[in-house]
């Protein structure tokens, strides 16, 4: 099963791990709700929509 990180990389293959340490924050609060986008401020790529993420399997 693809993780949220995997799905985002599938949508934007040029993203680097450094982007996830600086301008993109994925978070999991270990409460059963799973991974989510906590913050997104990438200067080039817009935050993926729920529909875009749902299309990736």
């Amino acid at each position: 099963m693809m993780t949220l990180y995997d799905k985002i990389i599938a949508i934007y293959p040029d993203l680097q791990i450094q982007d996830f340490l600086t301008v993109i924050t994925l978070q999991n609060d270990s409460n059963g709700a799973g991974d989510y986008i906590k913050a997104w401020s990438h200067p080039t790529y817009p935050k993926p929509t729920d529909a875009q993420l749902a299309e990736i399997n």
Partner: protein
Amino acid sequence: MAALIPSASATGSGTMTLAGPSTNSNQTISIPDTTGTMMVSGNMPAFSAYQSSSQTLTAATLTKILFQTEEFDTNNNFASSTFTPTVAGYYQVTGSIRCGNTQIRTFIYKNGSQYKLGTDVSVGYNAMAGTLVYCNGSTDYIEFYALVTGGGSVSAASAETWFNGCLVRAA
């Protein structure tokens, strides 16, 4: 000579007892020349917990680290891997994690948000975060989060992945 005067605002019916030493030695307790709450073992929360069941972390995702086993929790303020002290004051808290062959970045969270960044280590090391943090004794809570760049399983061992803290100074 200074007088010992019971507070007029005291509402309880309990008796305050000053117990002498159990030896024949004379002992002196010096009261600070200031107003405040005297801290004793009964109102100074301290906790220590560790991960006893390995947690799998997803790459590039800040994840709340779980601590399933308590070593001590003197005031019952640690639950669900969250420290919510019921005594207002300044707390020293520290977390540590070991997780496979990956870069690890650690954070102390306060009230659900990043509060202090800890160490950011490269492959194969323990990473730690620690800070002094004020808690209001009611709603403030502290958690330990980590981000790994490569994903992997956390080392579930009391000496490697742990979280502890204690009250250093009352409010």
